[in-house]
């Protein structure tokens, strides 16, 4: 059996990270967590996850910047990024897409929705 896929969850809201982690681990994924942008970015480079779930508003480095930094680096540009945010303005969505985000989910989200997206990318 192949090694389970790695997912990095970056969100400063620990409770949200916790619930996402629980559900994703129940699906058989290997989860890594970071609670601010800076550690999220360094962990991404260290762990080389198969997918990232990224919050926008975070201390130190925000989600857009992380996404931009990773997507412009050949080494990381293929990691799919699912952006999760409480901000719902259309323009925010546009920024997310332009910075290379693959999916954009607005809080409050359905866990099933996130899992479905993750499965889609990691199938």
């Amino acid at each position, binding site marked *: 059996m192949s090694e389970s896929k790695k997912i990095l969850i970056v969100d400063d*809201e620990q*409770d*949200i990270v916790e*619930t*996402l982690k*629980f*559900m994703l681990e*129940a699906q058989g994924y290997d989860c890594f967590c970071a609670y601010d942008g800076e550690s999220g970015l360094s962990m991404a480079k260290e762990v080389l996850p198969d997918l990232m779930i990224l919050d926008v508003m975070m201390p130190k480095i925000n989600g857009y910047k992380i996404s931009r930094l990773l997507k412009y680096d050949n080494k990381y540009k293929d990691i799919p990024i699912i952006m999760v945010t*409480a*901000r*719902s*303005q*259309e*323009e925010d969505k*546009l*920024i997310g897409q*332009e910075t290379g985000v693959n999916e954009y989910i607005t*809080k*409050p*989200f*359905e*866990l*099933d929705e996130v899992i479905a997206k993750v499965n889609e990318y990691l199938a």
Partner: protein
Amino acid sequence: MTKILLISENIKQNKQITKSLAKSSFAVICSCDETSVINYLQNGIVSLVLIDEDLKKQDSAIFCKQLHAAAIKENIAIIALVNSKTENIELLKHSNAYITKPVNEKILTASVASNIKLKKAVDTLTLNNSELAKSLYQLDVLYNTSTHLAGSLDKQKLINIMIDGLEKSLSFSLSSTLVFNDEHNVELIINSLYGISPRLEHSLKLRAILSYRALFDKKRVPYELNVNDIRVIKNIKHHLEEYDLNILKFDNLFAPINVGEKFFGLIEVFRETDFSQEDTTCFQTLARQVSLPLENASLYEEIKNTNTKLEKLERLKSEFISIVSHELRTPLTAIKNSLEICLSGKAGDVSSIMDKFLNMAARNVTRLSGIINDLLDLSKVEAGKMDFKFEKTSINSPVEFIKNTFENVAREKNIELILDKDKNISDTYIDNQRIEQVVSNLISNAIKFTNEGGKITVKTENITLSDIDKTKLFDIEKPVFYDNYVKVSVADSGIGIAQEDLKKVFDQFQQIENSLNRKNGGTGLGLPIAKQLIEAHRGFIWVESELNHGTTFSFVIPVLGEKEKFSADLEKELLKSKACSHNVLLVLIEENECERNSFIEAVREEKFSIIRKTSNTKEAYYEEDGKKYLEIMIPEADKFAQGFIEKKIESILISELDEKNSPKYDILYSTAIFPDNGEDVISLMEFLKLSFNKNIKAEV
């Protein structure tokens, strides 16, 4: 006793004349000395001059000529005493009358008496004349002052205009004006010809307080006033001398400045010479005149303050809703996720009772997120920040989609939900998602307010403008109508809405029958949002209802041709841009391609949006005189231009757009070279971001 000056060297004649005139109570002063004669005339000591033709020491004609000017000024007549056959024309020319020698007593007395009488009459006339001139001047000042007063809404300025007017018309020595701005801001404005001793300053303050208290007599004063509370403003003309307490002995006038019960202050003026009746009238008029504009000014101030407060509140409300909603979403997500995990059974077995309550919690979380979304939507449409994606399509599809999603809910309540769609419905420009939102709101409302066994009909049809009953459209400013519309209506057989409540249903937070609404859930925001969304589609929404027989909500959306659509879009853009001041055209002059690209990149990176983009790239990006220009439209010219001046970023030409939204190529800011290092481009972008707090998108 009236004195007469006699210039003669003939002693015998002098004696005779003195004697004759004494009988008519005239005193005679004899003198031939030039200096003393002039002195007598100028100081008004004598009322008439008699001059003898035969003077030995000097020529009588020349002497008479010398006296002439001084005499006229004081209205004094000169009578020459001449020889019977005199040929001294010069003497006769400079005198008012003559008597031949030897002097006849009767003729002399009569002539002197009549000339003296004339002088008195002329004196009175001159006095009246000067009084008249003074009154005229005061009137003029009054008029000017009142014109000035009427033009100002600034309290300080009004008081100064009044003091200025008083100074011109009364030429007072000192004025002391007590002004109440508010309880903690009381000023004593002292305008004085000379300096003020500290003792005088203190007593002027005390005097003002005493006058102030006296004004209110036994009634309660509006504010308790203390010497230390009064701020003194002094305007001194000459510092050479200083007034002390002695000025308080000068003649003075006093008046309160008030309108009815409203008290603004009081004014007192002092003058070394006494005030006349006219002065008093003038003073009172001016004091009264300033009161009304002062009241206007204070009302204006109040309105301005209230307005600022309201604006701030409105902004705070918007920000509050937006921040709170965002902040609520995060914890809500955590709750929702946790419930979902429990309900999925993945965290352990769930008993049926636990399942019931967990479901209850989940249902209410969903409801809560719905409310938050409503609030956010409303604050967005109200602020004009809602983005629409208009596509030309059939309105049947969103209507049908929503109708299908509600079928189960309707069936549960045993309500018949029917869709009566027009298969030939015209295509219109709609934002599918928003139309779904509106239809969903209308159908869910209909289900809520319809009892079991009821019926709901959703209908789509093509109509023309004449089919719309315009009396049903409430509260629309300057409606714009089109010829053809598509109409969607949701009719229920529910409890209905009372006629007087119909107008209220589209108002924010309006809850008709609170208890009912609570029973049926909802924020009361659905319909106001629907109204805003439909109006953004240039359509109308309205309601018809009969209590206990049912309600019909209908909305129409215009069927637009290509041309109309384009102009509608443009209009929308203009409307949007008007909301943030006017548009400008930015022209970038940069010969260096690298720099040019870095600017374009920078603009792109920060996503500023271009209000107007020339369709022709050649137009947007062209060469002239060997220089390359890039046009970028950005909103809010004023702020922008100002910032550029401040930041000293040269190189950007800004031109205003005219009504047709095409650029007028007047260069408003045109200094030459673009910064040639990358840092400046970055700081420029930082600045653009700060100025607009908006996304600007560049497409070249």
